[in-house]
C-alpha cells in the first residue's frame, strides 16, 4: 500500500483537526459512570504501537497521551515500531515479563498472549455502554473465545473493499458492482471484453492476497476452521468457490499470480486495471497526485460483494491493545486506554487518520471523518463484519500462521493457474491448516 502526503493535505488536516476537536461533542455518549480505577501513586506508562499510516496519526496520538499526563499526572512514553516487528516485540515482552505496560498489536495478538495479560472487561463494558456498543469485529478480537471477558481493546481496523472505476463499470452495463457471484462474473467478463479488466492479487501478498482469497471462500459459505478449531476448509462450499474462481480468474488482467501487495496499486494508477480490492491508501495516493487525480475522481469504493454471506466478507487488519500482567500500574494502564478511546481524544485521532482506520465503537459512525469525502464514507463499516482471520475457529496463533503462510491464497492460486483441481487444492489447504491449528 502506498500513500502520498502533500503539504496541502496536512494543512487541510490541521484545520480538520481543530474542527474535529470542536465537533467531538457531536459523538453521542450515554451517561455511564466510569469504572473506578484508583491510579497508583507515581505511576508511569510505556506504550508500544505500530507506526503511523499518515503523519497526523502520530501527532494526534502523542497529543492525546500528553493530555492524559496533564489530566492525571501519569507520565506516558509512546514508542512506535515497524509493523513487521510488533509481533516479535510483543512476544519478547510477554515471555520476559519486562518492557511496555501496553502494546497495541494486530488482530490475534491478545489471544496468543492471553495468559500474560490482565482482563479489560470493566473498561470495555464502560466504553461499549457509553459509545453505542462495540462493533462485531471488535467483539470478536477483543473477547476471549466463547466468553464475555475482554482481553484486548481494539482501536480500529483497516479494510480492503472493492475499488472500481465508475466509467468502466457503467460502460460494462452496471450501475455498481453487484452483490452476487453470477453478477460479479458477468461484470468482470464485460470489463474484460471492453479491455478494461479487473484483477485481484493471487501472489504472496499478505494483505491483498489474503483479503481476496478469504473473500472468495467466505462469500461462498466456506471457511478455514470449524468452531472447535479443527480444519473445515475441505468442504462442498470451498470446492464451489474454487470452481467459480476458475471462471472469475479468466477475466483478470494477466500476471496476477505474481502480484504483491503493491502491484494492483500500480496497475490501477496507470489505467491498466479498473476493478480491484485495496485499502483507502490507493484512493488517497491517486487523489493527491495531480497526474492521477482524474482517476481518483472516477473511482468508487463499495464493500466486497456479500455473495451468500450476511455481511461483506472482509476481516480488516485490526489494531488491538493489551495490558500486560507485569505492569506495575494496571489501573493507570486501563485508564489510559479508556481515555484514548473517549470521544474528545478518539474522534480527533480518527479524523487525523482520514479513514485509514475505522472505529470499533458504533457512536463514532457520526464522526466527521466519514462526512468529509463521500468516497471514503464506506470504510466506516469496516468493523461491522462477521468475519475474522481463521474464521470460524477460535482466534489463535494458528490463524496468524496460516495467514502468513498464504494457505488460502495458494489454494486459490493453484486452482486459478490450473495446477490443481478444486478438490485437490482444498485437500492440500486442509493438510496445511491441520498443522497450523494442531493442539499443543
Amino acid at each position, binding site marked *: 500500500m502506498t500513500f502520498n502526503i502533500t503539504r496541502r493535505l496536512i494543512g487541510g488536516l490541521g484545520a480538520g483537526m481543530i474542527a474535529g476537536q470542536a465537533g467531538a461533542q457531536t459523538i453521542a455518549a450515554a451517561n455511564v459512570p466510569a469504572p473506578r480505577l484508583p491510579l497508583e501513586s507515581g505511576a508511569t506508562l510505556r506504550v508500544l504501537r505500530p507506526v503511523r499510516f499518515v503523519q497526523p496519526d502520530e501527532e494526534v496520538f502523542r497529543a492525546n497521551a500528553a493530555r492524559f499526563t496533564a489530566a492525571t499526572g501519569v507520565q506516558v512514553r509512546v514508542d512506535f515500531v515497524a509493523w513487521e516487528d510488533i509481533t516479535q516485540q510483543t*512476544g519478547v515482552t510477554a515471555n520476559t515479563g519486562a518492557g511496555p505496560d501496553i502494546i497495541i498489536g494486530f488482530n490475534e495478538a491478545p489471544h496468543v498472549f492471553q495468559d500474560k495479560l490482565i482482563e479489560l472487561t470493566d473498561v470495555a463494558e464502560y466504553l461499549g455502554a457509553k459509545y453505542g456498543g462495540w462493533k462485531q469485529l471488535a467483539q470478536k478480537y477483543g473477547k476471549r473465545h466463547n466468553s464475555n471477558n475482554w482481553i484486548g481493546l481494539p482501536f480500529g481496523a483497516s479494510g480492503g473493499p472493492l475499488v472500481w472505476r465508475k466509467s468502466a463499470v457503467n460502460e460494462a452495463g452496471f450501475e455498481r458492482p453487484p452483490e452476487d457471484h453470477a453478477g460479479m462474473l458477468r461484470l468482470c467478463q464485460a470489463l474484460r471484453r471492453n479491455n478494461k479488466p479487473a484483477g485481484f492479487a493471487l501472489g504472496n501478498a499478505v494483505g491483498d492476497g489474503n483479503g481476496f482469497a478469504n473473500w472468495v471462500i467466505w462469500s461462498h459459505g466456506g471457511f478455514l476452521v470449524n468452531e472447535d478449531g479443527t480444519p473445515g476448509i475441505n468442504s462442498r462450499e470451498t470446492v464451489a468457490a474454487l470452481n467459480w474462481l476458475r471462471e472469475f480468474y479468466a477475466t483478470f488482467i494477466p500476471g496476477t499470480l*505474481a502480484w504483491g501487495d503493491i502491484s494492483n496499486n*500500480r496497475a490501477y494508477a*496507470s489505467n491498466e486495471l479498473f476493478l480491484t480490492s485495496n485499502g483507502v491508501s490507493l484512493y488517497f495516493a491517486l487523489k493527491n497526485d495531480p497526474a492521477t487525480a482524474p482517476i481518483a475522481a472516477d473511482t468508487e469504493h463499495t464493500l466486497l460483494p456479500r455473495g451468500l454471506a450476511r455481511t461483506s466478507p472482509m476481516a480488516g487488519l485490526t489494531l488491538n491493545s493489551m495490558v500486560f500482567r507485569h505492569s506495575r500500574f494496571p489501573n493507570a494502564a486501563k485508564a489510559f486506554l479508556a481515555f484514548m478511546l473517549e470521544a474528545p481524544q478518539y474522534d480527533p485521532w480518527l479524523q487525523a487518520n482520514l479513514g485509514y482506520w475505522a472505529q470499533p465503537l458504533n457512536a463514532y459512525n457520526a464522526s466527521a471523518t466519514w462526512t468529509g469525502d463521500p468516497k471514503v464514507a464506506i470504510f466506516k463499516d469496516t468493523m461491522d463484519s462477521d468475519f475474522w482471520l481463521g474464521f470460524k475457529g477460535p482466534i489463535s496463533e494458528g490463524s496468524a*500462521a496460516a495467514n502468513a503462510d498464504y494457505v488460502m491464497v495458494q489454494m486459490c492460486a493453484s486452482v486459478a493457474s490450473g495446477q490443481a483441481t478444486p478438490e485437490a487444492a482444498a485437500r492440500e489447504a486442509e493438510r496445511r491448516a491441520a498443522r497450523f491449528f494442531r493442539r499443543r
Partner: protein
Amino acid sequence: MSVTTAPELHWSKTRREPGWLTKFFDNKAVLVVACLLPAFGLLGVFLTYPLGLGIYMAFTDTTIGRSGVWVGLENFEYLFTDPIFWNAVFFSVFYTGIATIGKFGLGLWLALLLNQHMPFKSLIRAIILLPWIVPTVLSAIAFWWIYDPQFSIISYVFVDVLGWRETNINFLGSEWPARFSLIVANVWRGIPFVAISLLAGLQTISPSLYEAALLDGATAWQRFRFITFPMLLPILAIVMTFSIIFTFTDFQLVYAITRGGPVNSTHLLATLAFQRGIPGGQLGEGAAIAVSMIPFLVFATLFSYFALARRKWQQGEGND
C-alpha cells in the same frame, strides 16, 4: 688526609623477586587463556550460541508467543511429508546448481577477457564490480521491476517498441519462468565476484609458462586446458565454495521479487524458514527448515575441497 673509601660497587644488579601479579601474567597458560578469551567470547556469544539455539529450537515447538517443549524429530517428520518443503529443497539445489554453472561459465570468460591488455583496463574492472557492490535488495527491486507483469521494460521493448509480441511477457506468473528469472538475476549479481577472484588467480600465473608453451607450438585451447585451468583450480575451488554457500543461502533476491510465489514454486529453504518462523510465528518449524540446510552446505564445502583442491599448487609435486 682524605681517605677515599670507594663504596663497593655492585655491578650486577640484584634481581628483584617478581611479584605474584607478574608471575601470574608471565605464566604461559594464563597468557594463552587471556589472549584467547575475547575471541572465544565473541565467537561463543555471537556464533555458537545462536547456532546452538537454532539447532535446539528445531527440536521444539517454540512459537513467537510461547517457549516450546521438546518434541524430538516431530518438526522434521512433518517437513518430510510436506511437499512445500521438498519443493524448496529441490529449488534450492536447482537454483544453486544452475546459477553456479552460469556464474562460473560467464565469470571465467569475463576474467579471461579482462586479463588481456586493453585500454582503460582498471576502469573496466571497476565497472564490472558494480553489480556486486550494489546492495542486493536494490538490485532485487530493480529486477522486480524488470520482471513486473505490467511494467516490465523487456515487455515494453518487445510489445511497444519492436511490436514482436501482442502481450506482456509473464516472467513470474508460472513456475518455470519464475524460477529461471530468479536464476538470471542471481547470475547477474554473482558474476563480478567470480570474475574478479578468478582474475586475481590468473594474474599469479607466470607468463613464462605461456612463453614456453608458445615455443612448443601450443594452441590457445591447449594453453587454456594445460596451463590456465590447472593453475587456476585451487582458487576456483575456494571461490566455488563461497559462491555455493552464498547462493544456497540466498534470501533477498527471492524474498524481494516473488516471496516464494507463484504457489510456492520459488521458495528457497532460507525464504521458507523465514516465512514459517518469523511472520508465521512457528519458530520451531522455521528453525528445523534452517537446520536442514546444514547437511547440504557441509556436502558442498567438502565436495569443493576434496574434488577440486586436491592438486598441489605450484609445489612441483605430482598432480594427485
